[in-house]
């Protein structure tokens, strides 16, 4: 059963310096499974993920031959229809909770916002659900976290809040864009296992974006490898070691390093045929 089908997706930026093609004809489809997207920094992973929510800011532009979510044509949907999908059916966990949570709003208010504004729940009921969501991401003192402001939380804590917030409406599809890249290595595994457990339990589709091929292989069924806005290879996670593409092999050989996004891969031959065009 196909949940999301994307054909020939393109994201273009008309900048003063000229036209930048961030995504150049990406096609994939996804059921209630876990799809990984890997690639070096700047390869267009984030733009691909955000296109699905139609959240590319101008001057960015989205074009696609097809982008269908559960029978609904996302390219033709009105802004109102998109809003009904966002949060409710498609959600996204972003990279760094330090920036992705509103700094001047209490965590509780941000958690309950969807419940109160969209679902029109009363305060007590919304609070109960928010607390349950925090408990689901293994936060032990939800009351205190609800009253806190984002800057009072650690990175790992902030990302759990983000995951809890995005999972409250029980979406069908979750896009996780480098959900642990900004975290301390010590908490990365913990946050990942929480995310993985929830996605499995609730049987939702997952697009897991990362620059770390091994990580993606561990958490996903299928992997797309992106380079310069294109998919250069698609393979089942278990076949990873048999990857044929030199770029994928390059990603595999690149030992994991501590810290966030890596720059372009060193020691990779970019003069070969695949790297052109």
């Amino acid at each position, binding site marked *: 059963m196909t949940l999301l089908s994307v054909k020939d997706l393109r994201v273009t930026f008309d900048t003063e310096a000229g036209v930048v093609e961030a995504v150049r004809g990406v096609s994939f489809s996804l059921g209630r499974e876990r799809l990984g997207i890997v690639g070096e920094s700047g390869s267009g992973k984030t733009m691909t993920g955000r296109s699905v929510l139609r*959240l590319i800011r101008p001057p960015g532009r989205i074009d696609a031959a097809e982008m269908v979510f559960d029978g609904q044509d996302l390219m033709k949907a009105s802004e109102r229809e998109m809003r009904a999908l966002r949060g409710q059916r498609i959600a996204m966990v972003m990279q760094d909770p330090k920036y992705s*949570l509103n700094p001047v709003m209490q965590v509780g208010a941000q958690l309950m916002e969807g419940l109160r504004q969209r679902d029109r729940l009363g305060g007590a009921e919304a609070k109960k659900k928010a607390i349950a969501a925090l408990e689901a991401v293994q936060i032990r003192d939800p009351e205190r976290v609800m009253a806190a402001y984002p800057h009072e939380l650690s990175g790992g804590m902030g990302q759990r809040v983000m995951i809890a917030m995005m999972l409250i409406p029980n979406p069908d599809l979750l896009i996780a864009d480098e959900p642990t890249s900004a975290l301390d290595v010590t908490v990365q595994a913990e946050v990942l296992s929480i995310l993985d457990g929830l996605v499995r339990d609730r049987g939702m589709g997952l697009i897991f974006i990362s620059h770390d091929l091994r990580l993606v292989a561990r958490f996903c069924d299928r992997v797309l490898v992106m380079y310069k806005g294109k998919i250069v290879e698609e393979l089942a996670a278990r076949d990873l070691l048999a990857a044929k593409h030199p770029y994928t092999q390059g990603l595999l050989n690149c030992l994991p390093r501590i810290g966030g996004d890596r720059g372009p891969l060193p020691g990779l031959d970019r003069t070969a045929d695949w790297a052109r065009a």
Partner: protein
Amino acid sequence: MAMNTSLLNGRLRMVLGFVVSLVVTIFGLLLVTFIIGRVVPIDPILSIVGERATQAQIEAARVALGLDKPLWQQFFIYVFNAFQGDLGMSIRTGEPVIDAVTRHFPATLELATIATILGVIAGVPAGVLAATRPGSMADHVVRLVGLMGYSMPVFWLGLIGLLVFYGQLGWVGGPGRLDAMYDMMYDFEVPQRTGMILLDTAFAGRWDMFANAISHIILPAGLLGYVSMAYISRMTRSFMMNELGQEYITTARVKGMPERRVIWVHAMRNVLVPLITVVALSYAYLLEGSVLTETIFAWPGLGSYITDALMVADMPAVLGGTVVVGVAFVALNMVSDLLYRLVDPRAR
């Protein structure tokens, strides 16, 4: 519990910090005005006793004014008196400076407050409109209107405004805070609780007088409000653009929040943090800098009081008025600081 006590300590430290900075600032202000008062080539005794006074008369005046004491003593007497609300006697009128100042300051405060309110009401939405549609017609209009506010010849526009809206069209009241008839009534029939006519007449339920005061204040306040709006709209635009580019905005959109809420709740709450400082600055600027407007509109505010005093070298009046403006400035700063902490949890 641990969190609570630390919060309490934080509050206490904050209040203490405020008190200390207030005292230090006012002390410094008094020092400066004291020094100016001694340095200017105006003999305070001569202006009191006149040019044909005898040596004995001059000496008596010196003692009466405390000028025979050492400078540091004079300064402490000055500070001591000031903290008790005694800013000396006006040479020109022989009236205590504090009395004149408390009469004139409310007029300035009222004008600056209305102008600031107008500036915020017009400037914030204009800035938001421009920020959410960068490069659009609306954006260009807002920027042009803002630019004009910067280079606006207040004097000229004030006169033209009076000529057209008062002289020709008769839509607004003329110079002064009230029509002559109401001026008398205000003095005799309305309890002057605040010295601000709009408030006093509202408290007394004298809506006829209130309406008349509005018709008088609308033109000068509109003019100053325009200047304030120019600054506020420009800053709002840039703050809002900056906030709309942040990741938490994307989060709100991912959650399916409508654009109205994204802008006016999520972004605006963050815009408020720097905007408070901008509004306070613009307010302070109007409190101390509306002399020209007060002159054109015969507005009996502190600005025109100080200017008139300066013309006749009435130094106690000039310096006393300056001290009051300075205190207002410090108070405004404190309020904006408090508000700042209120809207930004990171600053607490």
